[in-house]
């Protein structure tokens, strides 16, 4: 049996920070759920967990490639963040193409009268009987931040696990699992839909931080033990 050492704590801490980044990052991702797929709500027309996981795991692929050639934590985490940001940005952009050219509606936010970034008025562009549609600038920027945090968080978890066992496949799968747990907790907190950081639901972040902290701490300890740390 191996003995407990300080590096175990560092790994658990890295996993917890990664989990918290994912949990908070999901709150930034603008998703409208099923209504958004009918241009009935602002945001991307899919589920919170689905989009956040899709972008975070694209980041994980980038981080995995980077970690195979370097040990620099900053490079690995940033590589994951950039991969996730590219995924979520392209998805939101193409989503907007479909809203604008396929459905004929401009991107507009419903939870604010004026876009906090561009100061554009929003209500005149909301089609009747809906609560906004598409991904306006404020939601787009918010989604980019969400991708950054999700990608960085997933990569940090992967980095910690890789340092323990050195097996990329196993580490990647555990990282995916921890990522999804935090994304689901955050999704419950925002009840499935959110427009971005300007949405009143965003104020619920502290609650998600608490829940994600407890969940990731427990999973982190078990993940480190299972992977052969301590």
């Amino acid at each position, binding site marked *: 049996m191996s003995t407990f050492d300080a590096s175990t704590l560092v790994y658990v801490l890295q996993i917890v920070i990664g989990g918290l980044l994912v949990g908070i990052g999901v709150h930034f991702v603008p998703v409208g*759920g*099923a209504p958004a*797929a*009918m*241009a*009935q709500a602002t945001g991307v*027309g*899919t589920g919170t967990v*689905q*989009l956040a996981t*899709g972008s975070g*795991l*694209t980041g994980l*692929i*980038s981080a995995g*490639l*980077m970690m*195979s050639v*370097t040990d620099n934590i900053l*490079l690995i985490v940033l*590589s994951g963040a*950039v991969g996730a*940001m*590219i*995924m979520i*940005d*392209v*998805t*939101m952009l*193409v*989503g907007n*193409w*479909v809203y*604008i*050219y*396929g*459905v*004929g*509606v*401009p*991107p507009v936010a419903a939870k604010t009268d*004026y876009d906090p970034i*561009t100061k*554009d*008025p*929003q*209500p*005149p*562009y909301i*089609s*009747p*009987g809906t609560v906004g*549609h598409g*991904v*306006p600038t404020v939601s*787009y920027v918010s989604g*980019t931040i969400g991708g950054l945090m999700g990608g960085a968080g997933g990569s940090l978890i992967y980095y910690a696990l890789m340092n323990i066992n050195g097996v990329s*496949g196993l580490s*990647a799968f555990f990282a*995916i699992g921890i990522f999804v747990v935090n994304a689901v907790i955050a999704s419950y907190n925002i009840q499935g839909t959110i427009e971005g950081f300007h949405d009143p639901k965003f104020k619920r972040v502290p609650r998600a931080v608490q829940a994600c902290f407890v969940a990731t701490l427990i999973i982190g300890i078990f993940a480190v033990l299972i992977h052969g740390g301590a």
Partner: protein
Amino acid sequence: MDMVSMGLLAAMGALATIAGTSEDLESDVGSQSNPNSQVQLAAQVGHTHRIYNKAISGEPPSNALYAALAAVTASVLMSDPYGMNAFFSIAVGALVAAVFNGILSMTSYMGRNTSQARFNQHVYLDVLRSHTTTIMAHAYITAFCVVAISYIMTAPWLPIQHPFPLPVIAFTWGIALGAIGSSTGDVHYGAEREFQQYPFGAGLNAANSGDIVTKAEAGLRSSIDNAWFCAKFGGPVTGLAFGLIVFLDNWRTTIFDPATQGWYAILTGILIVILLNVYNRILEIRSKKRYGPYPEYVGDIKA
């Protein structure tokens, strides 16, 4: 950067574009994902229909399942006792994924429609026969392309050398692809094709939920008609999205060697992200200028 790497990168982008298109059309034929809510609701508000109704799960988990199944099968066939050629291994793997998709689609269709018998919704055996094979064919193309991309990234004799095993990387791309298909192309099906009787240029009014088009130009509308429509725009742009993601994400690590020029790769990625943000803003301004405010709007805030 060498010519082989650039060629492989181009091949990955092309495969991803095909995968994205077929993934979106597969979900459109089956009415999977978010627009399924309207198909499910239609019978309950009095519109019985001949639209295929499968909601196996959200698209990302189901696509991850198919991609991982195909990749595991291909890995086993390529490994030692069998030693099958990679191309044929991936083809057999994709076939296994398509068969699984067919089984899940059929049980899903029959389960959903029989549960709506009280709303006079029938199980149409001809729909089951014609549509399930169409769904499987699209799923085959998707699984083949995703596993081929993953193989290019992991094959020991090719330059990229990603550390993840083939099934894990296929699983990951499967989730990403499902998320993209669900976020982009499905909107064209859910917001436009399902509600074509309402004027172009508006989201679905909540009061009209479930009022989907059930009649076609001649006879009753089927889900293959829907795929025909979505293949004109929703499908190809989904392909473009996935192609762009696979291409851009790998391009920056192809032109800059991550081992020696890692920071350049990251800076290039950040530049791409900034450009995408700027382009989205231009798109927003242009669309608002072109379409203008809604005439029904009566609030105080001026456009």
